[in-house]
């Protein structure tokens, strides 16, 4: 594909519902990142994958958040029992770099989640 693709672009959930957000990275990109961006804030790191291995999940705010990348390509961010404070734009980024440094991140357009 031409770039990182995310779906859905917009999601409205009732409090308590589960949601799943999908990210399709640039083909061949080993590294994949999820960020959460609240209104008026910069992107906050959630988790990082290198191929299918989740190497850092220190930014996940609670055990309601879960991410996977089972075949080292497409990734899904799942939020269980959504709360109003989960309302944000969820950004996915991929990178060709691995190992010693992150390198340039290529971002998707984001998935805007609104929890009512």
């Amino acid at each position, binding site marked *: 594909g031409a770039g990182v693709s995310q779906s859905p672009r917009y999601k409205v959930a009732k409090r308590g519902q589960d949601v799943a957000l999908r990210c399709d990275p640039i083909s061949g990109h080993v590294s994949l990142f999820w960020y959460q961006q609240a209104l008026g804030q910069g*992107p906050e790191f959630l988790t990082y994958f290198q191929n299918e291995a989740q190497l850092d999940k220190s930014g996940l705010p609670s055990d309601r958040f879960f991410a996977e990348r089972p075949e080292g390509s497409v990734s899904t961010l799942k939020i269980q029992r959504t709360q109003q404070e989960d309302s944000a734009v969820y950004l996915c980024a991929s990178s060709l770099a691995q190992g010693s440094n992150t390198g340039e991140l290529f971002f998707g357009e984001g998935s805007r989640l609104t929890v009512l």
Partner: protein
Amino acid sequence: AQRVTQPEKLLSVFKGAPVELKCNYSYSGSPELFWYVQYSRQRLQLLLRHISRESIKGFTADLNKGETSFHLKKPFAQEEDSAMYYCALSPLGGGFKTIFGAGTRLFVKA
């Protein structure tokens, strides 16, 4: 702990005026610094990185390790520079977490 601080939420300048977007960082090791930009209705994208030492769209940024700063500068602002700018830090030599500042909105007035 890693931290990136952008003290200005909004910066408004006239077309043709110099512009400087401030960025200070906190990191105990050797960092790689980036500026990302988000134009209206577009996705976040890399503007420049300190390792490349290049000028992109007339913008430059110098890493000052003594002052732990990485300010973004352009001598003559253009209207098309109006956007959201984010300073970001990534650990060099081992580490995957790129940390972003809160961002500065640059508005260039005609």
